[in-house]
């Protein structure tokens, strides 16, 4: 498979107020390197404020990086474009547009003729079971429905890459599980590359091919963990498996700044307790 996204030694500085006349700066991201293959599902987890959303916004072209390289399909990004779709935390649906016209938005920007736009939007709404709501306004929908609309809005103009910023943070547990399976189904059908920012370890492990764990101050990628759970993944069985909890634990330990159980001495899962004890002894 070809490489879709290449990030190399990328960094971002913010100018901060009150930093003296020359202007102080805050390094939000530093030395971020990452390669994502075409069609891969990569999650990004990290403590709040580590810059994981910022990384996503840089990939979207909405924030400009300060240094380093960001290549999409071999080309340096210059700004937002229709080869990437972003799904934001707060749905960001246009309240004055019906569900259907929300989904049409990207196609409008693309210059797709009206009839084709309409057909495509309805097709996508159908795929997430929302065709009956095509003529409704966003305020008439539940949170889970809004999130589905936001996802198909980003898919409708057929980007190569789907960037998702904690998309399911605001919906309830049951809806979230449904949306997970729906997202995996869409992903498997469309072969999009997905970068998925989340603060839920379970979500990251369950959905992804790989999980990138970030650390804060300045934000950097600490480690990328391969998730070799079999696909297709059915919710209950996968989450109950030993492999799942081992992976889950590994990500958790990394987020707690403990040594990686696999790397440091390749410790199996059952020696975790002794690791925890030795860790707390050094505190």
């Amino acid at each position, binding site marked *: 498979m070809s490489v879709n996204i290449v990030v190399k030694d990328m960094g971002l500085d913010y100018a901060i107020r009150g930093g003296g006349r020359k202007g102080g700066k805050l390094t939000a991201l530093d030395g971020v390197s990452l390669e994502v293959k075409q069609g891969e599902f990569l999650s990004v987890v990290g403590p709040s404020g580590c810059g994981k959303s910022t990384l996503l916004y840089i990939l*979207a*072209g*909405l924030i400009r990086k300060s240094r380093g390289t960001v290549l999409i399909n071999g080309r340096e990004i210059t*700004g*937002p*474009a*229709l080869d*990437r*779709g*972003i799904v*934001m935390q*707060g749905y*960001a649906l*246009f*309240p*004055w*547009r*019906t569900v259907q016209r929300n989904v049409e*938005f*990207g196609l*409008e*920007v693309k210059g797709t003729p009206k009839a084709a736009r309409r057909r495509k939007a309805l097709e996508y709404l159908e795929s997430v079971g929302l065709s009956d709501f095509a003529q409704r*306004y*966003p*305020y008439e929908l539940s949170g889970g429905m809004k999130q589905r609309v936001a996802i198909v809005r980003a898919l409708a*103009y057929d980007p190569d890459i789907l960037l998702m910023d904690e998309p399911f943070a605001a919906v309830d547990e049951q809806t979230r599980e449904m949306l997970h399976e729906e997202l995996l189904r869409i992903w498997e059908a469309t072969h999009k590359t997905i970068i998925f920012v989340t603060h839920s370890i379970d979500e990251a492990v369950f959905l992804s091919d790989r999980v990138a764990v970030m650390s804060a101050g300045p934000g950097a990628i600490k480690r990328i963990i391969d998730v070799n759970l079999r696909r297709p993944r059915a919710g209950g069985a996968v989450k109950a498996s030993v492999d799942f909890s081992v992976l889950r634990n590994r990500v958790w330990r990394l987020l707690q700044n403990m040594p990686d159980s696999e790397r440091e001495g390749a410790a199996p899962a059952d020696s975790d307790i002794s690791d925890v004890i030795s860790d707390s002894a050094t505190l």
Partner: protein
Amino acid sequence: MKSRKTPPLARAAQKSAVIAAILAAWWFLPQHFRNMFLPPLNEIAFSFVEMAKTGEMWKHIGYSLSRALAGFLIAEALSIPLGILLGWFDKAERYLDPLFQVMRNTSVLAIMPLFVMFMGVGETSKIAIIVWGTFFPTLIVTIQGVKNVDPLLIQSAQSMGISRFGLFWKVVLPGALPYILAGFRQSAGVALIILVGAEMLGANYGLGFMILHYQQGFLVAKMFAGILTLAVLGVLVNALIVKLEARLTRWQEKIAK
């Protein structure tokens, strides 16, 4: 969240009950307790019909409405586009906002003599003062509306590579529309208030002139006929704009209506 539906007839009754009671009291009570400054409603109604028959009333209404409308439309035609521009290019707005605040918060009635001094007592000064008074409320609200468009929506549209013009046309304008319409409605109310002031300061026609004229001539029933006509006009204009607002912003969630 939706309140239980009341049948339309019952709702109309709820809405008009208090006003109907006051009008009824006004109709009957002064007939028993006479006061020369408060004639019973039937006498006022009689005066209205009389003035309507001779055409006097329509003339005054016609003059007043055309002045108010001219001033209001000129002001809106200037303030809405300017407000959109200043909201969009907010650097200029930073310099101008203090000036707008001073202008808006200075009573229009206070500077009315100034307009008369410079422009005389003719139509020009009357329309100009209405333009002045209605310009700032819409301008300030429009600027706010453009500035308050949800940044998330702007980013969302930008992520799809939308052009600057497209962003303006498809996101900023519809996003600011509820504000613009609110300013529009507020200004329409202000236009009628200033109109009366302007007509009282020097005019030969118009409801403001008429009210003052009959007050000075102690024809109190006719004076009241003018006041009540103005009240009805104000309510009608407001209702008309509310209807327009509802039509243009159907997509907004209605919280208890």
